[in-house]
């Protein structure tokens, strides 16, 4: 199967600090991939490099066979890769509804420019209403984003990423800041909403239970490199991963 996203030798150095070191990854379409690793391991840098927030020092990023290395975030978004953020990036003075409408409006404005993404015949306003319902944001519809609880902001942030109809969605710690008992509900909600559209998902996560439950494949990062790549059970059982990433005793359910 041909890869939807492929990186080769992706490297990012800030002076002497190498935040990403020779990352070569190939992601198949319609999969869910988990990115794990300690703080500063290079997960977010990987996301930043793929989505164009940072330009790599070396290496390439290919999306559906097309070289997208160093393109601006909006170009990459328009090609079909979108992301959510560790710190929710929402429009504080706009309501939840309007936040979604901004993205949907951009899509409808640039409908022709979006490859493989269209709203169909639906008006952006209707899609926004529908998304509010799908993400259970209905009760917050007319509240300014600045007034939303952190977990809701997180959800809105993810919904906004999805509003632009990406082929690949990159989620940066979707469950951080969300209470432990809500994490699974949130992931069910998010992945349920996404997977219906056969969107490829890569997400950064610290909670290994979440990773184990929702991913088909795990990339483990340490010190800017990928130290393990494969099926969740295999990666989580890997000795290096256990030493540098999870730090947990040998799990029973391997």
């Amino acid at each position: 199967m041909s890869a939807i996203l492929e990186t080769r030798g992706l490297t990012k150095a800030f002076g002497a600090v190498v935040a990403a070191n020779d990352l070569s990854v190939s992601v198949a379409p319609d999969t869910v991939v988990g990115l794990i690793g300690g703080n500063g391991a290079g997960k977010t840098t990987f996301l930043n490099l793929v989505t164009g927030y940072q330009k790599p020092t070396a290496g390439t990023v290919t999306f559906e066979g097309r070289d997208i290395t160093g393109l601006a975030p909006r170009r990459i978004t328009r090609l079909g890769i979108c992301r959510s953020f560790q710190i929710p990036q929402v429009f504080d003075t706009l309501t939840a509804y309007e936040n979604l409408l901004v993205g949907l409006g951009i899509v409808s404005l640039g409908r022709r420019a979006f490859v493989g993404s269209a709203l169909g015949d639906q008006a952006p306003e209707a899609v926004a209403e529908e998304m509010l319902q799908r993400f259970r944001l209905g009760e917050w519809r007319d509240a300014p984003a600045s007034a939303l609880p952190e977990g809701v902001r997180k959800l809105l942030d993810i919904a906004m990423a999805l509003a632009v109809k990406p082929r690949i969605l990159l989620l940066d710690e979707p469950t951080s800041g969300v209470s432990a008992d809500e994490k699974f509900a949130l992931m069910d909600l998010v992945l349920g909403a996404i997977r219906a559209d056969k969107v490829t998902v890569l997400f950064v996560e610290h909670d290994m239970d979440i990773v184990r439950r929702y991913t088909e494949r795990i990339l483990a990062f340490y010190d800017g490199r990928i130290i393990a790549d494969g099926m969740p059970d295999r990666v989580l059982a890997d000795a290096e991963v256990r030493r540098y990433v999870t730090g947990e005793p040998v799990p029973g359910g391997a």
Partner: protein
Amino acid sequence: MGDLLAVTVDGVLYASWLFIIAAGLTLIYGVMRILNMAHGSLYALGAYAAASLAGAWLRGGHAPMGSYAMLAAAAILVGLVMGPLIERGLLRFCYGKDEVVLVLVTYALFLMLEDAVKLVWGVEAYFVAEPYGLLGSVELGPLSYPVYSGILVLAAVGVGVALLYAVTRTKHGKLLLAVIHDREMSAAMGIDVNRIYLVTFTAGTMLAAIGGALTAPTVSVLPGMGVEVIVLAFAVVVIGGLGSMPGAALGALIVGLVRSAAVHWLPQVELFSIYLVMALVLVFRPRGLFVAAEARKI
């Protein structure tokens, strides 16, 4: 060759004058995030106070040398009276407002001070020319410069060194840096931000007044004398980078030298040379020479 010397000397003299004024502006902006449009009026107040005090001193028949002390006293007086008056009486009610709104607050203040000055001193010109010529002149090639101009340079250097010392070596200065770095955190850590603001604004006011007091002997002190100064000082501060003290020094030097070169070699462009420099600097260094764009955590 002689030309080059003159251009340099004239440029440095102009730069010294500008730096004293711009230093106060950039200090206030750096700490309080207020681009103070009333800075020019405070400069004018310094000049008025200096002309009145030194004038009275000289008319009273005291030793002419004492007039220098009077200039300094006037600047300190204006700083100590107007600084706290404006900061406590007006600005503290406006903290937390948008930067642009704060610019408007100080613009309103500028309008009011312009008329207040007129009410106190009238529209007649005030003079206190004696200190300018008192110390004699030095010959530089075909040109002669009053020794007083040297005092201006010394004052500028003194202001720069004093500020540098105050900020990097004193406890107060370190608190100041903390406030510049992160206001909320400083307040949370128990730093009395209000006190820092009061001291900063008073110091900034005093710098404007020093600029005015030192200028008083070389001009006639008149209503409206502060208007031109504001935009010039803005240009200097923007070129150097808002809030940056070394930036203000370098900005003043650049503006001084460019203007002096224009006057000597290309008088036609003098009128907009400064704005041209400002536009050019901003094109290549969008935040000025000494301030780098900060990356944002996402």
